[in-house]
């Protein structure tokens, strides 16, 4: 009895300080809400998913808050976008977390960009005279259903690799996701059909993949170069560009300042449309996501763009 008591006390002490085992098989941490939604789609109840950034945040500029390193400490899988989207904040968090297996190339790391073909890959000499570009290519591919399907497949494969007993479940859920994606694509194609070939003005080149998928294109960007502020001269030059292209829609993610867009709209007769930058891009206070998941996000994007570009 005397020997048992210290052992029980020690066990109780360890239980208070040790990481708590989650009910779910895997604790998945993602860098964005969009990736979190995809992980929930294919992981279902076998995964507990947390996003490091909020949907209302510009994913380029998340604070490397040490509290986020605590979330990474016990992550069974880290899913990031890649292509240097998170280069300004994720690397120090991974180092602080002490979770070596979620480091780049680690067994518990899945970089979504590894599953997709990349657009806007610089082919010539690269320096920052062309703005704060991503040298590895454009990382904003999670609004393109073709690429999202590949990312979901990659997540399912990685989940199955880390949780073999759940592999069949992940495969089933992926098949279900693909089926719903196929049905949704029919609906989205119908919505976008009237505006196919139209041109729009965007704030940043974050809609490159979406526009390519939707059959639209960007006549110009409010940012003269990626990551730089639009000076009056650039906004003035965009007036002519927008008029010549017949671009009515000026698309601005909800986390950007809208003043330049509104001035442009005033001079072109166009319409400024606030679009969600991600799942939860309109409102995610207290965990209430709006749009609530990736399908709702894509629904919102298709609806807003098709209405504005008419």
């Amino acid at each position, binding site marked *: 009895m005397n020997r048992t008591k210290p052992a029980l006390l020690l066990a109780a002490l360890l239980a208070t300080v040790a990481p708590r085992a989650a009910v779910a098989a895997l604790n998945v941490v993602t860098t964005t809400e969009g990736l979190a939604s995809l992980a929930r789609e294919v992981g279902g109840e076998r995964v507990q998913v947390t996003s490091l950034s909020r949907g209302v945040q510009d994913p380029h500029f998340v604070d*490397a808050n040490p509290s986020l390193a605590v979330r990474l400490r016990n992550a069974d899988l880290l899913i990031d976008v890649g292509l240097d989207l998170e280069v300004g904040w994720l690397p120090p968090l991974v180092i602080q977390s002490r979770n070596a297996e979620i480091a780049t190339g*680690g067994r518990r790391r899945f970089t979504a960009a590894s599953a997709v*073909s990349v657009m806007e890959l610089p082919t010539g000499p690269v320096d920052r005279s062309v703005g704060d570009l991503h040298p590895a290519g454009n990382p904003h591919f999670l609004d393109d259903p073709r690429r999202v399907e590949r990312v979901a497949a990659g997540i399912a494969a990685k989940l199955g690799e880390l949780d073999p007993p759940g592999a069949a479940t992940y495969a089933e859920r992926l098949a279900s996701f693909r089926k719903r994606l196929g049905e949704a694509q029919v609906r989205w194609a119908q919505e976008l059909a009237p505006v196919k070939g139209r041109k729009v003005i965007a704030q940043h080149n974050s809609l490159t993949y979406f526009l390519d998928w939707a059959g639209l294109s960007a006549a110009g960007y409010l940012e003269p170069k990626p990551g730089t502020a639009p000076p009056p001269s650039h906004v003035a030059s965009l007036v002519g560009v927008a008029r010549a292209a017949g671009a009515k829609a000026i698309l601005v993610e909800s986390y950007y300042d809208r003043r330049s867009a509104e001035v442009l709209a005033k001079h072109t007769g166009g319409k400024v449309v606030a679009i969600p930058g991600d799942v939860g891009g309109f409102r995610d206070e207290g965990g209430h996501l709006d749009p609530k998941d990736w399908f709702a996000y894509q629904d919102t994007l298709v609806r807003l763009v098709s209405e504005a570009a008419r």
Partner: protein
Amino acid sequence: MTTVCTLLAAALLAATQGTGNDSELEAQVARELGAAPAPGSQAPTGAQPPAGTRSPAQAAPQAVAAPAPVTGGNPYARVLLLPDISAIGRAALAWNTLEVGALSPRSDPYAPRHTLRPIFQELEVGLQAVVDPYARADVFLTFTPQGAGVEEAYLTALSLPFGLQARAGELYAPFGRLNQQHPHTWDFVDRPLALARLLAVDGLSGAGFDVAWLAPTPWFAELHLAYQAVTPGLEARQHDTGLARLSQFFDVGTASTLGVGLSAAHAGGSGGEAGRDVVGADVYYKIRPPQTRSSLALQGEALLRRAGDLPAGIAAAGAPPFDEAGSAWGGYLQAVLRDGAYASYGLRLERAPALGGGPELRASVFAGWLPSEFERLRLQAAYDVLPGGRTGVEALLALEFAIGAHGAHPF
């Protein structure tokens, strides 16, 4: 007893390295080997996956045409192995109404009295890379008008168990908040006077090692224990110094973060000179609604130093920067408003021990413009009050630029 110890080791191992079958198997293997798993059992930051370990998704065919077969190997192989290389330059235009060098010594930029003087402060060259599957290295060389030197050069072990992380080499001491940050990350152009006079004029740093433990708490709590040969205060001689720091961060709602830290350093005597103890407390509170890049950050540090007998060198050079009792205190409080992506403003209030005893008080303001993430222009003005009521005005126009791949900085 041996069995209990073995079980305890296995339980701790499981607690620190995750749950599930893998960890159980690893713990079992550790028991069978009679030791903890080798450090290479986990891949560190930047480590490349072994050949043939691509995930099914990575190996999946893409929508684009299959690439042509690669012949002759990768012509960029040497380039791929290069570390991240960066250079950060800092220069200023300074103007003062005081003879700063004689009355208010510091290493940060100042001009001769009533003279507008351009000053090149520093060029920092960074080399950062993973060393091998077990560690990474960060090297920062500094070039100033006084010469070239090593600002930091340390190895970080990435695969230690039990939430431990170790750094060894030349490094800034884990004391307070600003001391561990490189000057180009500071909000204000110069170092608070209290840090220069109570810690070290160019930052408390030196050769040694720092072991940090991330506690298994729901909030971020990190305990540092370090041992370094540092050059404190205005001295030229190194002291072997033991340091401890506890740093904690808490989320306060969804839009703000509170960080608090306690630090202590004990420097032993050196060459017949007395040792000294320094304790410090720091606080950082940042409010940043997630949908914006604007933020308000409040930050403060307070330091108390107790020194033994005056070092002979300092006594010979003039009055010491602490009072007769051998103790001194100082600190600063600052508020920095980041207004969107391109502008920032700050206010700082300071108290530091002055030369000859008594407090030196200073108030500073700055306005900054950031054309991009890689360039910054700041105009800073300060009003300095010395013991006896003597006052001075300082002005700095500081330019900063960064090129190359420079690793992101901790919060």
